[in-house]
């Protein structure tokens, strides 16, 4: 148990734990924000109260995830200082500014309009409310942009050079638009959207299968499906392009993703392993099941490579990513889920065209509904796997090719990190189950179809005196449960 006294390992574990956990919440709220913009927009256009009730129902799940997303996001920012002070000092000129932009542009935009979005239904005009909803969704997605720029820069540091161990920026726009930025932002944007669509679709399918509010939930399922028709295939393409970039800029990561030990020279057919067991000491795979020419088809759409693919043995052992098996399988799980989403979307789209998803018939599509329920958690798993590939694959560098992770750590005794890590593990596990529990409770209650719909004409919300707010004196449970 040597690692228990190693500040570097413990700090990495702590960052990994908090990041993996934190990611679960914004991944939903970022995508669901766009969904809320869509349903509220449909309501404003059609004035159909069902869409209004959709907005109200889904925003309950939204806020549950939002609160814990904020709570678990704050430690992420502070850890750069508490645990990675040397890294912070070396790259702060660029990296720190990006985190500052994220907070001031994205986080504050979201926070500034969230209150109105959640509690302002009867206080502002519906159009102002819609503006608030759009700003919340826009802020969340801006967050993705800035965080992905910061992380991409750690992968492909551009726009300056390291002088005496400190990164000096020469061209900010080159640093912002570093080689990884564009595709990474798109890949993550579609990932949040796709995850949310399949969560929304999966929950809707659960209600349909249970025979509860079938007509209501066939609406949200169809909205999710319509969006997935575009998003799911595009995500596969964006992922493919991202893979090509990894090959070009981070050959050690590609080698680990494919568990490729030997270099495959140009002109040769490159096999692709479906499954394998890497042996890091022996520098080989204990076994593998490979498709001949597969890698060539994946990278260049032809069996033989036009440029070599470097194997791990081309690099010194201390420059290779650790945990090759983890990177290898995380990558395969992510890709597998991506294709499953496309297949589910395609089958559902066909059924929709055949008229099988009408409110009368959708209840009989039991297998399809079960597949949607199964899909609900898969997006999360794919996203986590993607980040594992991205960040474990970047090791042993904190800034690829420039600063080793071990050089970035703070001057903190291991016992302190062990204590904070333990607290995080316990508290976060507890909170995880709390969210599941309270989330399940929101689903059990279902949508409240009796909520009064705000009207457009008679309302001059700025004039509404707070005295007109008549409090519901019943206990909180009764207010939420008394609806038929």
């Amino acid at each position, binding site marked *: 148990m040597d690692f228990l006294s190693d500040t570097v390992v413990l700090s990495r574990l702590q960052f990994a734990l908090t990041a993996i956990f934190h990611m679960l919440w914004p991944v939903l709220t970022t995508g669901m924000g766009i969904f809320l913009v869509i349903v509220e927009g449909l309501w404003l256009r059609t004035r159909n109260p069902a869409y209004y009730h959709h907005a109200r129902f889904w925003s309950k799940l939204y806020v*549950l995830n939002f609160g814990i997303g904020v709570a678990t996001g704050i430690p992420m920012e*502070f850890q750069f200082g508490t645990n990675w002070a040397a890294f912070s000092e*070396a790259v702060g000129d660029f990296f720190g*500014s990006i*985190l500052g932009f994220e907070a*001031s*542009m994205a986080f504050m935009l979201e926070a500034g309009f969230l209150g109105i979005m959640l509690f302002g239904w009867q206080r502002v005009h519906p159009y102002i409310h819609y503006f608030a909803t759009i700003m919340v969704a826009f802020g969340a997605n801006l967050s993705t942009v800035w965080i992905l720029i910061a992380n991409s820069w750690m992968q492909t540091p551009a726009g300056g050079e390291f002088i005496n161990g400190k990164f000096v920026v020469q061209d900010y726009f080159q640093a912002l638009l570093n080689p990884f930025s564009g595709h990474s932002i798109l890949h993550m944007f579609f990932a949040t959207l796709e995850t949310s669509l399949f969560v929304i679709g999966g929950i809707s399918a659960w209600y349909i299968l249970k025979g509860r509010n079938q007509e209501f939930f066939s609406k949200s399922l169809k909205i999710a499906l319509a969006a997935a028709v575009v998003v799911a295939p595009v995500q596969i393409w964006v992922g493919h392009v991202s893979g090509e970039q990894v090959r070009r800029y981070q050959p050690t990561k590609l080698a680990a993703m494919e568990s490729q030990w030997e270099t495959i020279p140009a002109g040769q057919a490159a096999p692709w392993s479906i499954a394998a067991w890497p042996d890091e000491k022996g520098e080989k795979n204990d076994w593998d099941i490979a498709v001949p020419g597969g890698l060539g088809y994946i990278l260049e759409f032809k069996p033989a490579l036009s440029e070599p693919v470097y194997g791990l043995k081309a690099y010194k052992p201390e420059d290779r990513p650790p945990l090759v098996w983890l990177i290898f399988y995380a990558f395969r799980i992510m890709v597998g889920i991506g294709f499953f989403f496309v297949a589910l979307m395609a089958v559902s789209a066909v059924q929709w065209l055949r008229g099988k998803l009408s409110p009368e018939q959708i209840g009989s599509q039991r297998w399809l509904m079960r597949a949607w329920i199964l899909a609900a958690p898969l997006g999360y798993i794919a996203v986590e796997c993607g980040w594992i590939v991205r960040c474990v694959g970047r090791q042993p560098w904190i800034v690829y090719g420039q600063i080793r992770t071990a050089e970035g750590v703070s001057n903190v005794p291991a016992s302190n990190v062990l204590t904070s890590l333990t607290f995080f593990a316990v508290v976060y596990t507890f909170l995880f189950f709390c969210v599941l529990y309270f989330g399940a*409770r929101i689903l059990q209650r279902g949508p409240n179809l009796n909520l009064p719909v705000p009207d457009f004409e008679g309302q001059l919300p700025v004039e509404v005196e707070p005295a007109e*707010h008549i409090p519901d004196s019943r206990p909180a449970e009764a207010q939420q449960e008394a609806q038929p």
Partner: protein
Amino acid sequence: MDPLAQFLPQVWFFILALFLFLYVMLDGFDLGVGILSLTSSNEERRGILMTSLSNVWDANETWLVIMGGALFGAFPLAYGTILNGLYIPIFLMIFGLIFRAVAFEFREHAKRKLFWNYAFGLGSFLAALGQGFALGSVLKGITVDAAGRFAGSTWDWLSWQSVLVALTLIQGYVLIGSTYLITKTEGELQDTHYRTAKIAALTTLVGAIFITISTPIFYESARTRLFQEPFIYIFAAVPLLGALLIWLLLRSLSRRQERAPFIWTILIFTLTFAGLALVVFPYIIPMSVTIYQAAAAPSALVFMIIFMGFLIPIMLAYNIFQYIVFRGKVTGGHYE
């Protein structure tokens, strides 16, 4: 020194001070209300307290994140050194903030609210405590090596001075929380907070007097600085003005004015904060690392001003809009 290399760090010192001030004032009343919720006699009252914050707590807390990001970008050395040195207080604050943040939503859904009531109240207290320790130990000074990196040990942050600062800060938060609640509540609940405001005003005053007297006595570096011109005038003026403001505050509480106590409290916070900033300037880690030593390259500071500086008025505008939408008394435990 190159005028630009001097001017830009000063601009960023001012911006950071603004962010920190907004944070201390806004999350101050927010955390204060949280601490006060520990004294609420029943669920209905606690519900009103939490509703008074439900639409603003998130935006208030965001100023902390913005402050952290700006410190990281503008003064990377100080960001690394201070957070490295304050490992334990920072994590006290973080765990406090986690618990109080999730309590807002979880308490709403929970059948048994007791646990989440404590998560909210004690989380607020823990966050304030961590911040107080952090402030106290930054003022006392952080041990650094020649390169400005943290060179102290784990428990450096714990001293009787930092305990004193932490207790005073908590009292200050309770004070601003009470005066905020006076504006948001009515009837019996408002009476309670007239009382808590009075008590907190007095305890804050006692803490402030101790800190004011003890600082020059026990800190040599502060002493030599404070008794030089022009600091001596500031050092003399701040307590006098402070005493005047406290008197105005107590008078407004006795006269049961609704908004004035909150405004006087904000002015007291402003004065204290401005006094501290003037005493500390141009140090970012007091008396050991200056803003010029810790600053990022001028190009980085300009880059950040272009992106971030122009956002400050916009951020303030939509924050203020939110307060306008939700102005007025909170009467029930929920917004519709």
